[in-house]
């Protein structure tokens, strides 16, 4: 063998850095795309769920007889019918598949029904007679934190996780001190495609489940355990996902549909309605945050002390990781020598909370950015200036002691959003929109800033990997590639990105992405802004392995400068010739650099893989008398390392910003005494096109030396800092304190 220099293939259209059309784009905008709620099997039954109306109760009697007697009903199952483990969970196995005795949240499933018509199933479920001993719910965080108070779970304390972080001198003092207490309401992911799936019993006694989810393998593990089946008999295939944002990390109807299918021997479809969906998935943790910032006379931070309480609701879900994020990212993208941070996650009888875009970083960012504005005011400094003076940069230490490696352009992002030209003097329309509430009376302009930090990929020593199988073969005499992974396309554009990576790595334009399923190894979750990094990294590694195999066939050893762009790789014709010997397939399990656990006492440790940053400037018009807000413009700057697909990057930044705007102004699940008061899109308000302003984007591409193509996860950062920027702008216009999001008109007006 001779060693030769071969680099990347010559560029083909639609590679990394281009914005080719999504393969599913046209179908989605024309309404033809098949979502999981469109699944169909000819002889299928429909499942329905009976849920508890009470947030805390004890079931004293259960009679399924009336439901069983309904014509058309094929099965009525309770906790006694769960074939395997009675409980499941992402981090802690604490959540019953079906409630046996204890009810811990409103909406907890108790009975499932299969019938030949969805309406029949629902009506039968309502006929089940349940007698409850209704108990007082634990709903206040302070009460939940009290060790002497009532416990949500008899066998475990309410304190799910406490993450303390200690850096420097805990008794440091400072010339200027500002304190604040903040509150974040319960946001919902509010995906448009409700929980749905189809379970089909298989001849081998196993089950095939077609499902909209974020992580097929973590579903498979939990479903198999609850069904008492080996994982290989529980086969999952991803079906069309109508949005996720974290809400599909936990199981919803997966085990239920499989139980009904195995019991009846018929395929069973379950689709939640909009109202049930609000009870069928976890939400963003509501939080109470108390902060004290100390700075010297120049505005340099001396210390931050913080206590963050996160309401985990009835079951753990991913609360532990959310708490760790809130703690480790809780002082923001600032260099702070002394930190005393305590973040707590608690069980309550409120709706269970778990993953949602931003994952613990959102709640903290609202508080620390509000504090930075307060500090600027106390010092008489410009809010951007105070941030710039404290901006984190490469080589600085996080409160965890972790060194910030790679680009950390915090100051640059802030300057970029500050230096954008001001918003137009007159917006598209005034606060109140078309509702004719003002002709300019009481309307005041305000501008606010926010910047945030987010970890990318899974942290704290988690064995985070993604698997990709890539097959290069001749199709009609031309090289073509098939990519097979279990990675969930949840709307973010992963299907597009996988093909782009293949085109760049192999120079082959024709790429097909096989349906994601559990026939290939785990890809990990489509969350934590990680999938382009991880599955993208795995696809790239598999392509590189294929390149090596091609060179071997050619009788050449791969060179060390394999990625040298100047030396072209094989031409398409050469590849075609080499494939005459047969297809080449490579499966790669790819990992990011390992992370490490946090010290349980000091919170020290290299817990995160990569940090990502975004900054926002929001300009708002506020009607001071009515408390109505129109966001006039948002400008943002984000470092994405490498924009693998610039169109998709812009989409993520715009969508994430909108979700943060929603939290600032309107999105809240209102919970009173453990009960959800607004489980509908009539009263859970999402921003409309009239609420989202025009945006301008600055996308930086400062490569991270450790990630594929230098990319940085993009999905979450825009959600994090848009909330505090919008609120800061409202404060600037009104002078109101606004310590809670969503901001309501009555908070602005003060009545």
């Amino acid at each position, binding site marked *: 063998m001779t060693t030769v220099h071969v680099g990347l293939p010559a560029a083909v259209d639609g590679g990394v850095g281009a914005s080719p059309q999504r393969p599913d784009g046209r179908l989605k905008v024309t309404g033809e795309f098949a979502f999981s709620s469109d699944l169909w099997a000819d002889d299928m039954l429909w499942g329905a769920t009976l849920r508890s109306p009470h947030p805390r109760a004890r079931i004293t009697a259960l009679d399924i007889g009336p439901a069983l007697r309904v014509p058309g009903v094929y099965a009525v199952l309770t906790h006694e019918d769960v074939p395997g483990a009675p409980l499941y969970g992402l981090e802690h196995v604490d959540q019953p598949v079906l409630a046996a005795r204890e009810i811990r949240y409103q909406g907890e499933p108790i009975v499932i029904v299969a019938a030949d018509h969805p309406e029949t199933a629902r009506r039968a479920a309502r006929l089940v007679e349940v007698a409850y001993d209704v108990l007082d719910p634990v709903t206040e965080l302070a009460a939940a934190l009290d060790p002497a108070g009532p416990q949500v779970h008899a066998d475990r304390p309410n304190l799910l996780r406490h993450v303390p972080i200690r850096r420097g001198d805990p008794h440091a003092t400072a010339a200027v001190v500002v304190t604040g207490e903040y509150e974040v309401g319960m946001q919902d992911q509010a995906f448009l495609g409700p929980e749905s799936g189809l379970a089909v019993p298989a001849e081998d006694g196993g089950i095939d489940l077609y499902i909209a989810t974020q992580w097929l393998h973590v579903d498979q593990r939990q479903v198999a355990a609850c069904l008492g089946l080996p994982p290989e008999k529980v086969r999952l295939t991803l079906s069309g996902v109508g949005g996720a944002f974290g809400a599909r990390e936990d199981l919803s109807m997966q085990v239920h549909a499989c139980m009904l299918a195995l019991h009846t021997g018929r395929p069973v479809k379950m689709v939640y309605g909009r109202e049930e969906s609000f009870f069928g998935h976890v939400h963003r943790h509501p939080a109470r945050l108390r902060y004290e910032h100390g700075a010297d006379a120049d505005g340099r931070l001396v210390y931050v002390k913080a206590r963050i309480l996160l309401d985990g609701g009835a079951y753990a879900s991913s609360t532990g990781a959310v708490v760790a994020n809130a703690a480790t990212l809780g002082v923001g993208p600032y260099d702070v020598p002394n930190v005393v941070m305590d973040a707590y996650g608690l069980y309550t009888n409120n709706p269970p909370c778990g993953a949602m875009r931003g994952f613990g970083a959102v709640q903290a960012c609202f508080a620390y950015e509000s504090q930075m504005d307060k500090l600027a005011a106390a010092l008489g400094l410009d809010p951007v200036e105070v941030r710039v003076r404290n901006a984190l940069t490469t080589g600085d230490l996080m409160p965890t002691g972790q060194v910030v490696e790679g680009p950390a352009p915090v100051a640059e992002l802030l300057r970029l959003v500050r230096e954008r030209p001001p918003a137009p003097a007159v917006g598209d329309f005034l606060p109140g929109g078309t*509702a004719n509430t003002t*002709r300019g009376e009481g309307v005041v302009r305000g501008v606010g800033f926010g910047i945030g930090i987010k970890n990318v990929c899974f942290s704290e020593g988690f064995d985070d990997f993604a698997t990709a199988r890539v097959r290069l073969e001749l199709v009609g005499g031309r090289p073509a590639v098939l990519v097979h992974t279990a990675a969930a396309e949840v709307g973010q554009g992963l299907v597009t990105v996988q093909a782009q990576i293949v085109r760049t790595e192999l120079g082959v334009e024709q790429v097909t992405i096989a349906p994601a399923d559990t026939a290939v190894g785990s890809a990990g979750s489509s969350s934590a802004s990680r999938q382009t990094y991880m599955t993208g990294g795995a696809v790239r590694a598999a392509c590189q392995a294929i390149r090596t195999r091609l060179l071997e066939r050619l009788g050449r050893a791969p060179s060390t400068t394999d990625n040298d762009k100047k030396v072209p790789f094989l031409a398409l014709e050469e590849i075609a010739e080499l494939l005459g010997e047969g297809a080449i397939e490579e499966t790669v399990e790819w990992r990011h650099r390992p992370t490490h656990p946090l010290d349980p006492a000091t919170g020290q440790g290299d817990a995160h893989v990569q940090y990502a940053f975004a900054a926002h400037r929001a300009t708002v018009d506020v009607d001071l008398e*009515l408390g*109505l807000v129109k966001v006039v413009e948002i400008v943002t700057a984000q470092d994405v390392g490498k924009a693998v697909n610039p169109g998709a990057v812009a989409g993520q930044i715009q969508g994430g910003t909108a979700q943060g705007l929603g939290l600032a102004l*309107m999105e809240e699940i209102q919970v009173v005494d453990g009960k959800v008061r607004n489980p509908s899109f009539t009263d859970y308000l999402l*921003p*409309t096109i009239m*609420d989202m302003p025009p945006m301008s984007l600055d996308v930086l591409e400062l490569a991270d030396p450790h990630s594929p193509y230098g990319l940085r996860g993009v999905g979450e950062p825009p959600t994090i800092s848009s909330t505090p920027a919008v609120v800061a702008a409202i404060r600037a216009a009104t002078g109101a304190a606004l310590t809670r999001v969503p901001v309501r008109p009555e908070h602005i007006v003060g009545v």
Partner: protein
Amino acid sequence: MDFLNPATWADALKMKAERPDAVPIAGGTDVMVELNFHRRRPPALLDLTRIGELSTWDLDGDTLRLGAGVSYARIMAELGEQLPGLAMAARTVGSPQIRNRGTVGGNLGSASPAGDAHPPLLAAGARVELASVRGTRLVPVDEFFTGPKRSVLAPDELIAAVLVRPAAGPEQFSKIGTRNAMVIAVSSFALALHPDRRAVGTGIGSAAPTPRRAAEAELFAAGQLPWDTLGALDPDVVRRFGELVAAAAAPIDDVRGTAAYRRHALAVMARRTLTWAWRDLCG
């Protein structure tokens, strides 16, 4: 569930008499939500969309007869001159899809305290034409509502039309929502100046068990406005008008807003709309 599909108004009235439990459906933008949320499972639906005359309007002397089935989109497009307050309210209803389907008859049928058509109809002094095989009766709109989602509509009756005098003066409608479009009113207010009668009409939405007028505010303003001179408004009169409108409300705290905010917002809307309308009247 039976689906009754009359082709004529006479058939519709006959069917409603025979099946008083049948739920009329016009645009379906309330009915279908109730069905989809499993809040209601009526034994029968009575489809009114095939009855052409229901979705027409015409002017008879000084009375405009607005068929119950005329959509918000058409009110915006066709009646901005004659019924400016209602047209403004129509513009704030839902989204374009909802405005294409939703009707004033349906709004009245639902009788929600938050129905956006109600305040301008109250301010304009409209009457509702109710029909059954027994005959037809006219009910002043401020006597139509009897409670939250309740009205004087009898089980065998249908809403045929709304009778209203085209505006003789400026009308305004203003609505508070916590987002800038597609929102159910937190509270709303409609104002009509009737310079011909030197009268003022008002309508309050989403701030009492039913849509209602602010009668005292109407009388106060009618007496205080400088009709003769068409001169500038006295700020004290404007302020007092706002107070009286707020006082006429009986709001509650709910997911959409607090009672205190609703009252406060009504006063602001009353002041502003009076100011705008007076300015429009004076040219």
